[in-house]
């Protein structure tokens, strides 16, 4: 299997007041296509930071990230937008659905930015896959946490991304819903999607093909490939 994401000596330094916080200290990682990987590690170890950089939401302070051969640190802002639109789907712990839009409109929202027309039947297929067909015309605030997160997953998939990045997607969910979300995420590799999920839940993390352990902005024990 070929490499989809590759980081080389990735560094991220935040400046808080006069103090520099080293969130990432030379991270070397590779993720292969069509795998389901989890990232685990203590709070503050830099998991979110890594996910944001791989998701083109933030830029590294040093080192490189490549997605499908494109070096993210060398491209312009609008090219970053394009990669976010076309290659990456993001799922957040707090769902971040737009409260004024129906569930269906929330899921379709990324198409507005990629100027694509919804493929016929794809919305229904997605809603069926994540199990929220009956909630199509509801507002997010009428949904349970599990349903909201499943809608968020559908939204992340509408543009048919190559990578789905999820930051503690089950952080606000109960056990049953957490398992459901992880089952859903793990099923996506069959659709050719690479899924990388940050979690604190070790049990859920074990559902993945591969677990990446983080500590103090570095990989803890894993060699960095599988």
């Amino acid at each position, binding site marked *: 299997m070929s490499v989809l994401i590759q980081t080389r000596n990735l560094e991220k330094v935040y400046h808080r007041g006069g103090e520099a916080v080293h969130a990432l200290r030379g991270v070397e990682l590779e993720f292969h296509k069509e795998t389901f990987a989890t990232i685990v590690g203590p709070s503050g170890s830099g998991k979110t930071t890594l996910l944001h950089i791989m998701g083109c939401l933030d830029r590294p302070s040093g080192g490189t990230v490549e997605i499908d051969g494109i070096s993210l640190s060398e491209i312009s802002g609008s090219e970053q937008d394009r990669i976010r639109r076309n290659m990456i789907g993001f799922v957040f712990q707090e769902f971040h659905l737009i409260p004024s839009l129906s569930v269906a409109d929330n899921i379709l929202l990324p198409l507005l930015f990629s100027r694509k027309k919804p493929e016929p039947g794809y919305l229904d297929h997605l809603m069926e896959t994540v199990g929220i067909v009956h909630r199509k015309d509801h507002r997010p605030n009428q949904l349970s946490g599990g349903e909201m997160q499943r809608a968020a997953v559908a*939204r992340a998939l509408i543009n048919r991304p190559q990578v789905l990045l999820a930051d503690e997607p089950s952080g606000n969910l109960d056990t049953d819903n957490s398992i459901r979300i992880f089952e859903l995420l793990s099923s996506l590799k069959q659709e050719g999607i690479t899924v990388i999920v940050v979690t604190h839940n070790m049990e859920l993390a074990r559902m993945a093909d591969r677990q990446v352990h983080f500590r103090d902005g570095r990989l803890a024990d894993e060699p960095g490939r599988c």
Partner: protein
Amino acid sequence: MGFLKLSLKNIARNRTRNLITLTSILIAVGVLFSVVSYDRGFSRSLEREMRRTGVHVTVVPTGCPHEAATLLLHGGVVPDRLDRETVAGIKDHVGDRAEGYYPMLLAQAHDPRRERLDLVYGMPGDRMADIKPQWRLAAGAFPEDDETIIIGSNVADRDDLAVGDSIAYRTMAGVPADAGHGIPAAPESGMLEENLEGTSRNNNGDFLRTFEISGILRTTGTQDDDAVFVPLSVTRAILGDAEGITALGIRLEHPGAATRVIRDIERGFAGVQAVTADDLLETVAGVVQSARVLSFSMVILVAVVSGSGVLNSILMTVFERTREIGTMRSLGASRLDIFRLTMNEALVLTFIGGIAGILLATLGAPVIESFVRGFLPYVPEGRNIVFDPLIALGSLLFSMVIGVLAGLYPAWRASGITPIEAIRN
């Protein structure tokens, strides 16, 4: 779903705030539309009214002729007079280019019984209809002799006067019997023969002369509504002097020759100036100009206020939605997309506000019109606000310009929101 729908949904979220913003735009555009419409309509009606008048050239004593002309229109009394020789000279000079002459003499006359001070226009009684071809009588007929007069509709309404009623004016004692011959305005008409037979002395020793109302004018919407029109000799008797007239109106055979005639008159006679109906038009337009400047400053002021209202409202939604905007960026929205979404909101607000303003101003035109009549010195008769699609379009455009200007800063702020700062919090 498109950008517009997304913007509309956002607007719908803050109903109260946006309704207030909408109202302020509505006012701004409504005022602009009314002012421009009125201005346009006013100029048109004024021109129409002026062209209809039977007098093409008006000769007045020097001083400021425009001021005098304005006074004439506004119902003031021009202090200086044209004397007998001058008038005769002018007539000689103009010769057969004239179709008719209309001497006019203005006075303020006191009616002690009604306790009114009336503005009295003296003009050749048998040719009043020529001077004011637009006049229509609501009742009665034009004067037939020196004892009959016609009155404006407001004068009639104020004191409940009807045709056949009488009005008594205080006249100067000791008026010479031939006072009316100062200007042989219409020698063929016997009406100008001064006649003091109707004069009586009241208890205070004043001379009172009684006139019968022969006709009442239909409302013209002009100063004529507040005036009394009498044969020239009557004004003369009221003023108690034999000399001079306030203005000499000339009806030309060819109105196009007016400029030439004016030049001849002004060259040939010192102390007089002649104006055309066009000049009068300009004079009145000048008066209107100051009103116009005032109203346009008002429009600018309201526009600035409503513009900052829009800016404030949109900026608030941007701050409130920082997180949402960050989410949209993380879903692939470009900076330009966010800019557009935010700008759309400003434009939708100003578009709806603009349409509503134009609609309301159109429906409320009669109210605005009567309001304007209350404070402008001279307003042409008839409807002055007419719906003009071009003005409507222009007003809408103006509204949208407010939208663009007000949306610029919030849209720029919104487009600067990074996904990280929004999602991290």
